[in-house]
């Protein structure tokens, strides 16, 4: 486990953040401004159990228990059933806090998680100044990429590298998960190269994200967080569409929500 100095935010005590997402549940434990423990697991059908379990795993990894925690914040869609937490905050606030604490130059965050994607504008104090989320559509989410990976019969982590190998960008006319899957099958049947199709898919999603970003504006530095940020093909496609460098936070991008929740727990729990 790497330890990260979070600068001036250095509250005494041990604080936890738990991010209960639709696909994965994450926890980060912080002490003295440093991350001292973390864990990730697949979200089960009971979000509260997943949150409790991931927190226990993170604490076990550093031989602590819940009684050692001064304050815990839950975020993500499962935050509404998190009796183990002292308070809750939205993933929009938490991703912002998480990214900003390591990267105070962040002014725009593109977060792509399991079932939603969002573009967040950040002010100079590290607070949200505007945001937009996807609207009843899975395009640009981990769930969408899971469906596409299934259509290609490859692992989720293979999609990005395959897209980067594409020499052409096959136009994809729909980012609807169901129609995109049908389109992919048709394109494969027509003999299109899988790498080129995947490059097209990543490009189509990036264009969709750019459409969202238009409504809140984009300012450098642009950071990319959430589980999908581990997909190098998506990062590359976003850079192509935004014509800017897309930066990955200096900590596991999938843990940004939980990290931000822990940072916020430190602020609230220490009365800052």
């Amino acid at each position, binding site marked *: 486990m790497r330890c990260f100095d979070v600068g001036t935010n250095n509250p005494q005590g041990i604080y936890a953040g738990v991010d209960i997402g639709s696909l994965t549940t994450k926890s980060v434990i912080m002490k003295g401004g440093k991350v001292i423990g973390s864990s990730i697991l697949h979200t089960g059908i009971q979000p509260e159990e997943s949150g409790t379990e991931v927190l226990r795993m993170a604490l076990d990894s550093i031989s602590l228990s819940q009684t050692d925690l001064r304050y815990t914040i839950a975020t993500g*869609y499962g935050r*509404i059933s998190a009796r183990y937490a002292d308070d809750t*905050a*939205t*993933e*929009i*606030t938490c991703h912002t806090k998480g990214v900003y604490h390591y990267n105070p130059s962040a002014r725009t965050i593109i977060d792509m998680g399991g079932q*939603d994607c969002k573009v967040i504008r950040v*002010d100079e*104090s590290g*607070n*949200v*100044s*505007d*945001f937009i*989320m996807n*609207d*009843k559509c899975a395009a640009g989410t981990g769930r969408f990429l899971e469906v596409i990976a299934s259509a290609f019969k490859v692992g989720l982590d293979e999609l990005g590298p395959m897209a980067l190998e594409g020499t052409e960008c096959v136009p994809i006319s729909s980012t609807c998960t169901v129609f995109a899957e049908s389109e992919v099958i048709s394109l494969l049947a027509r003999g299109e190269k899988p790498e080129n199709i995947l490059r097209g898919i990543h490009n189509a999603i990036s264009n969709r994200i750019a459409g969202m970003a238009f*409504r809140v504006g984009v300012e450098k530095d642009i950071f990319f967080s959430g589980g999908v940020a581990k997909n190098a093909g998506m990062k590359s496609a976003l850079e192509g569409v935004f014509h800017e460098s897309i930066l990955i936070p200096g900590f596991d991008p999938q843990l940004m929500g939980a990290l931000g929740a822990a940072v916020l727990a430190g602020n609230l729990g220490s009365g800052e």
Partner: protein
Amino acid sequence: MNMALTNLQKIQEAVERRPGEIDALKKNGQKVLGWIGYTLPEEIIHAAGIIPVRLGRGGDDRLVEIGSRYISTQNCVFIRATAGLFAENSDPYVQKSDGVAFDTTCMQVYRLGEVTKYYFRKKTFFLGVPRCFQTPQARQYFLMELEEFTLRLEEFSGKKIESHALAASIGLYNEIREAIKALYMHAAHDNPPVITWHEIYGVVHAGYYLDRQEYLALLKDLLHEIEELRDAGVVGKASKRVRILLSGSVIAPGDTKLIDIITGLNGNIIADDLWSGLDPYIGIDIREPTLKGIADAYMDRLLPPAIPHLDQSTDNRLHNLKDAVKESSADGVIYHSLRYCDSVTFKGLEMKEFLSHEKIPFLEIHTEYAKSDIEAIRTRSEAFIEMVKFRKQAGGRI
């Protein structure tokens, strides 16, 4: 409705009695005219001795599905749900309406009128509305439409509208408008509040059905009670919650999704800029008790969202929203756009940019009546409230 105020209870009881009262009045030969629209002067219906009832329901996805059998799914859910209301014919006011009037401000409302006539065989009345309110020709056209509408109402009721009856109805409606505005002032300015915005919204919707004379009397009693309680200091604690102004598409009776989410998150709705709320009651100044006076006043008031304003620099909708935010000391605006309510949806970005110059936080919630997006809306609304709170704590200009 919160029954802490005695007169809220009385209004609720009056609403419950109303279907039976209307039945009795119909037995005595009085006609009921339901209406749906934005630029339809109810004063004229009232002056004709006809019982006016404002129709339409929201929030029920089942009615949307029923309505979608009769009207394109690319109409907004309010229109489809209301088509479903006619198809199902179980709403007491739809049942009791001897006719239904529609104006053409919103073309989806006009289509609903056509559907109502064609499929449900209702006697229908259409009031033409010009597309650009600002020109002399538009005023002339609207006056001619009102004259035609009046003739048809007289034919329907079998009674000529006398000028003194029209003057009396205009006077009554002016008083109702003033009372509604006074209620909204309490929601915006009293802290601790004696009456909440949500309660006032219910009172406005009660006025869709009640006898208008009785309604005015109830409004006056309610205002008197509020002022007495406030002056006596019989109120709760001052609220520090984030103050929200709600704007955008119609939030019809029965549609509580967004309101429940915001209030459940400790957001404090203190004002609105809605055609199902305050907007129909503001900016109407009928200078002479005639059809011309009515036509001019309706052309001069706040533009409904569906009407284009060709001189964009003088579009009073944007300025009205900004003024409403300042007047109510709102911390931010939540802009509710119903799917396929294009005239509101298209305005969203312009509203946002306009308000951003004033440093007024703005969140657009694009939704429909299905419950599938409740958690997504909750997250957006909660994040917006968090954002405003953090900015206030940081001392930033809201």
